[in-house]
């Protein structure tokens, strides 16, 4: 570390030089492309300043797939290091940095934005709204995430990556343990994007409560909307804890306080306690929307109403609240005493009950349904057994006395990868395949998709099943290398092979997207899956204003009901007069203000106070400028609506 803290640019590792070169080539490529094709104006007015939830969703999606690539490369590097005993493929310092950034990136900069992508693209369409409640704030959230992620990712070529583990426990993350800027990159990258996450939580909670189509009661909302609502409740209560905890860590590092130091009256365990108060709800934040996605898909492709709608809603709300009362199971071994551990062991096991209810509801929905094996359905079917095993090992870990054996072993690693990949990633991928036609107007190729599905799935089990065994054999997480005498070598080699299979699965998916852009089956109806909810009642991709007429909802599964009883958008004779549509105007402030946050974060990371103050001043100016903006909305005139509707093949 000491050597690395000296230089501004990270030096000495050929892998890093390779990264430097590829970053420069990619940047130059983008700059040349934009200039040569005169796309700068297009980029600014269509993307950087947009407040359209659909475009913001696509930007979230692209960023999260890029982050999936980076986090995945981190994973493969780790698996290469561990494939054989006594390997020195990576230096130990580099290995520490990679497992730290792998975890942080996969949760905060891959799962969260992937989830927000689906929130943005689907929720307004699904509840029959024309945008979110606060479109400007929505753009703000995206750009804060973007610049936060950029700041965090910069660390591996400038200044040095954080290396204190994905949750940065003190005393390792304190100034004495991590003197360089790496840990500051961690704090500011997460703080900046964290503001955006909190704002998104508020935004979608209000959107769902206040912007539903006329007639849509709460208990008629699609289950994905319900899952987003419950996830947002958890975001609102959990993210402030993260912000405060990291702010306190920053106070320790920047001002020399002793809140979490081991000396001078500080208490490092208080950090562990606080960070898991966010960290545990966080896993429910990301998995709840996945549950919503599975519910939509199972119902659509079984051609049946979801089984036990009310119990689905209640179980999600219970999970979102109960998820807040389990955090100590991450540090049973702290030794808080039998009563504390017992309480949190019971709450943890209790969470298995509503989750089990949901599993049974999905199975009963499929029971005697007419199931079509589409790609979204495949991922959903793969999820159920995978998550079941992940949940069962979770209950094993929840038994506090037994946890002393499993704690921080590869058993734990296998468990949480099984729930996070089998639950969250499979769910988001299922959602991606399901809503892809709605985003871009074409389906993703089936044949390549199946190759991707099977390599991902086989790769997953080959990678993680041996890790359960390794955990029992005593292999702890974060070990850098091991000897032949441990007997871990064959299992690790198999696990590495599985990781590479998953990597191949990802390459198949990239190929699938590129192939389908050219050859994918076009969706001309707007309803390629014979869907049940409102997003399928409008053309794909949805026009700028989403709904020319706000739909009048009469039942749950409202689009299915409209198709069955021939009313609303599915009726032939019901053509109402158009009215001008009220829409928000684009704004450059979210982009500029988030760029100022980036400058401030970069300054504070290197403790260049002048740059930090300059960035903060820029943020203040942007806030002021926005406060005095009056002209923030406009109306789309009727003939423009008519022209757009005619151009996408709708009866005017």
């Amino acid at each position, binding site marked *: 570390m000491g050597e690395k803290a000296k230089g501004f640019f990270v030096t000495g590792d050929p892998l890093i030089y390779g990264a430097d070169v590829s970053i420069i080539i990619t940047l130059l490529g983008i700059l040349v492309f934009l200039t040569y094709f005169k796309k700068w104006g297009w980029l600014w007015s269509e993307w950087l300043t947009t407040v359209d939830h659909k475009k913001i969703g696509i930007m979230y999606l692209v960023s999260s797939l890029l982050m999936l690539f980076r986090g995945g490369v981190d994973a493969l590097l780790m698996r290469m290091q561990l494939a054989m005993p006594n390997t020195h493929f990576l230096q130990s310092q580099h290995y520490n940095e990679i497992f730290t950034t792998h975890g942080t990136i996969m949760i905060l900069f891959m799962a969260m934005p992937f989830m927000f992508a689906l929130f943005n693209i689907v929720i307004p369409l699904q509840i029959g709204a024309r945008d979110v409640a606060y479109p400007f704030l929505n753009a703000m959230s995206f750009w804060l995430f973007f610049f936060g992620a950029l700041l965090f990712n910069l660390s591996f070529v400038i200044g040095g990556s954080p290396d204190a583990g994905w949750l940065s426990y003190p005393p390792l993350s304190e100034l004495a343990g991590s003197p360089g800027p790496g840990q500051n990159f961690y704090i500011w990258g997460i703080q900046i994007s964290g503001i955006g996450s909190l704002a998104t939580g508020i935004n979608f909670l209000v959107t769902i*409560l*206040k912007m539903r189509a006329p007639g849509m009661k709460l208990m008629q909302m699609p289950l994905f909307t319900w899952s987003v609502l419950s996830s947002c*409740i958890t975001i609102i*209560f959990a993210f402030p*804890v993260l912000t405060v905890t990291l702010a306190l860590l920053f106070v320790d590092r920047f001002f020399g306080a002793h809140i979490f130091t081991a000396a001078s009256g500080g*208490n490092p*365990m*208080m950090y562990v*306690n*606080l960070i898991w*108060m966010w960290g545990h709800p966080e896993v429910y934040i990301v998995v709840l929307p996945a549950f919503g996605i599975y519910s939509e898909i199972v119902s659509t492709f079984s051609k049946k109403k979801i089984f036990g709608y009310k119990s689905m809603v209640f179980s999600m709300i219970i999970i979102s*609240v109960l998820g*807040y*009362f389990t955090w*100590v199971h991450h540090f049973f071994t*702290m*030794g*808080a*005493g039998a*009563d*504390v551990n017992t309480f949190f062991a019971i709450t943890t096991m209790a969470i298995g009950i509503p989750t089990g209810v949901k599993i049974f509801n999905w199975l009963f929905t499929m029971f005697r349904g007419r199931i079509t094996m589409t790609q979204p359905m495949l991922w959903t079917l793969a999820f159920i057994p995978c998550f079941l095993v992940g949940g069962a090992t979770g209950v094993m870990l929840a038994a506090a006395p037994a946890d002393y054996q499993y704690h921080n072993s590869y058993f734990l690693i296998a468990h949480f990868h099984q729930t996070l990949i089998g639950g969250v990633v499979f769910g988001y991928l299922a959602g991606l395949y399901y809503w892809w036609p709605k985003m871009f107007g074409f389906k993703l190729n089936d044949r390549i998709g199946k190759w991707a599905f099977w390599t991902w799935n086989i790769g997953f089990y080959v990678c993680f099943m041996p890790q359960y065994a390794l955990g029992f054999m005593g292999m702890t997480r974060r070990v850098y290398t091991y000897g032949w005498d441990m007997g871990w070598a064959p299992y690790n080699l198999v696990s590495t092979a599985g990781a590479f299979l998953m990597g191949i699965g990802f390459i198949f998916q990239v190929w699938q997207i590129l192939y389908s852009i050219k050859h994918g089956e076009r969706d001309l109806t707007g309803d390629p899956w014979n869907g049940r909810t409102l997003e399928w009642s409008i053309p794909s991709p949805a026009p700028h204003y989403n709904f020319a007429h706000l739909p009048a909802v009469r039942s749950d599964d409202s689009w299915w009901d409209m198709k069955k009883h021939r009313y609303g958008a599915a009726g032939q004779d019901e053509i109402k007069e158009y009215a001008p549509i009220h829409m928000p105007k684009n704004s450059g402030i979210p982009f500029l203000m988030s760029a100022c946050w980036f400058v401030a974060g970069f300054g504070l990371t290197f403790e260049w106070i002048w740059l930090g103050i300059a960035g903060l001043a820029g943020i203040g100016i942007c806030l002021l400028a926005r406060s005095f903006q009056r002209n923030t909305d406009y109306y789309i005139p009727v003939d423009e609506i008519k022209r757009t509707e005619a151009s996408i093949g709708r009866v005017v």
Partner: protein
Amino acid sequence: MGVSENHGSAKTYILGFLFSLILTAIPLWLVIQHVMSKTVLTVTILLIAVLQLIIQFFFFMHIRDGEKPRYHVMALVLGAVMVFTIVAGSIWIMTFNSQVH
């Protein structure tokens, strides 16, 4: 989308801001001047914090306004439960040193 919502006046915002400033300055002064014993000081700071919370509810967050579905009451009740969990839970968990005996 209702248009009748009351967003408060400049006067209430400025008053609320001033009250908040005063209620922040008092504990700072108390800490710097060492006028109280440790326990009394902690309790006083906590009381002033709660007072400031109430001030902000009334002056900034329009707690008295509202329409039919009383979302802010639900949010506050849930918030109270969560805050209780964070504070009481942390105290309970972090007393682990004294439980051993």
